């Protein structure tokens, strides 16, 4: 009986000790929580380049991929260490209100309008994306909107605004989901949608849709990485966040962004110089 007891005690103390040692190996200072958008994650860019940063710096980056709105909200609440998004207006507000610091434009890609190959709204050849959007509304074609406050969703709403169209025509479908699922639904319903080029290329093989409109400065999509104000949240991993931000603007990382290709297409253009 006594033996059993002491045996149990030994087992328990070993278990306790080993669990504390295990937790010590993933030290909080070594983890960087990066809130970013589904477009950088779905396209595979981060999976391609972050391991290099991790190997060089010894940090471990945990990516939380969500819409731009939620990513900035997480940053505002001090739930993450660093944030990378693509919605200039929302980012400016985030910095001006004292939550974000050191915004750096690191890269850009562009948005494209996808639609059925037959292009029932006859939008190809429009002079700009505003005119293309107007055609969707006047012909009452189906348009799938992400409706999730993401950067893409904000961009889409801004275009409707420029077109002075209230997005509530009969074909307008707001689904509150990420880019990938939106593309799959647009494909099922053979509808129009606005997407970043990266996610489109990543999903191209699965889709029976084509680019019905592209180009023009309204469809530019710049990405920024921002640090979080240390005065508001002193206990975050600011050192790691700064190391990651610095690495993103290094010539090496900028080159890796330019070299990243999906199915032979370059998705992102490095813009920090």
């Amino acid at each position, binding site marked *: 009986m006594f033996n059993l007891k002491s045996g149990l005690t030994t087992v328990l103390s070993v278990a306790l000790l080993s669990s504390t040692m295990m937790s010590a190996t993933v030290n909080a200072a070594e983890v960087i929580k990066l809130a970013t958008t589904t477009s950088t994650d779905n396209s595979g860019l981060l999976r391609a380049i972050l391991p290099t940063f991790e190997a060089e710096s010894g940090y471990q980056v945990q990516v939380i991929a969500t819409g731009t709105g939620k990513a900035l909200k997480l940053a*505002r*609440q001090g739930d993450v260490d660093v944030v990378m998004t693509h919605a200039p207006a929302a980012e400016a507000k985030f910095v001006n209100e004292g939550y974000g610091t050191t915004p750096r434009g690191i890269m850009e890609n562009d948005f494209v309008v996808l639609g059925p190959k037959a292009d029932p709204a006859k939008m190809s050849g429009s002079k700009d994306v505003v005119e293309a959007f107007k055609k969707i509304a006047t012909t009452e074609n189906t348009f799938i909107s992400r409706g999730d406050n993401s950067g893409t969703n904000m961009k889409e709403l801004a275009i409707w605004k420029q077109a002075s169209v209230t997005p509530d025509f009969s074909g307008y479908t707001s*689904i*509150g989901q990420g880019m990938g*699922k939106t593309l799959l639904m647009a494909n099922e319903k053979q509808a129009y949608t606005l997407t970043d080029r990266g996610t489109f290329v990543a999903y191209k093989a699965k889709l029976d849709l084509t680019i019905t409109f592209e180009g023009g400065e309204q469809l530019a999509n710049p990405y920024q990485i921002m640090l979080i104000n240390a005065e508001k949240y002193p206990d975050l991993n600011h050192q790691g966040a700064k190391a990651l931000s610095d690495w993103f603007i290094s010539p090496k990382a900028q080159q890796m962004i330019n070299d990243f290709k999906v199915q032979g297409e370059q998705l992102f253009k490095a813009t920090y110089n």
Partner: protein
Amino acid sequence: MNEGWLALLQQAFSLLLSLDPDVWSIISVSFSVSFAALLITLIPSIVLGFLLASYQFPGRWFVTNIVQTLQSIPTVVIGLLAYLLLTRNGPMGDLRWLFTQQGMILGQMMICAPVLIALSQAAFSSIDRRAWETARTLGASWQRAIWTVCRELRVPLLLAIIASFSRILTEVGCSMMVGGNILHHTRNIPTAIALETSKGDFAQAIALGLVLLILAIVINFAVGSLRGKAMPRSQ
């Protein structure tokens, strides 16, 4: 959190009490879809449960085990199955039911049928077979006899119905996959909560969560009082 809990709760209650149209559209989608799924599956499932409990037939053991297994499959897997059935190139693609309420109803039927069948089978197994045979020998038609047995078993059957309804009313996986969370059309309580949380807008999520919570409390207290009445006589 820089918004206090109290402020969020206040916003949530005011959304519910001010009859916010978006919130109530979500609630009505939830209930109408789940009620439809329950109503369509109700009679066939209870009849099948009765047959499994009362008759020996080849394959009975197999069917019983399949039904038991289906009960424990995660709803996302059933959602995946329904998605593959309904997708454009799938076997039922011509119906164009993917991302519609009909598609959601189909998925929820697949979720609630096994629960109903298994629980009603258990209920019918608990009753003495002689009740059924007596009714039949007294000249009752079989529908009439089943009805008599069902009245006898109303408490466990009602519990079965409540259990299966609460399962489909609260599942998120299948509704999200097959319904697609379309505003005013296929956005129901669970998918809306998932979306609002992912946007970081907690007030509406809490308001909808409260609806489910209040419903759960009402149902559980009702069930509790039913169970109390259905207690077996003390030995």
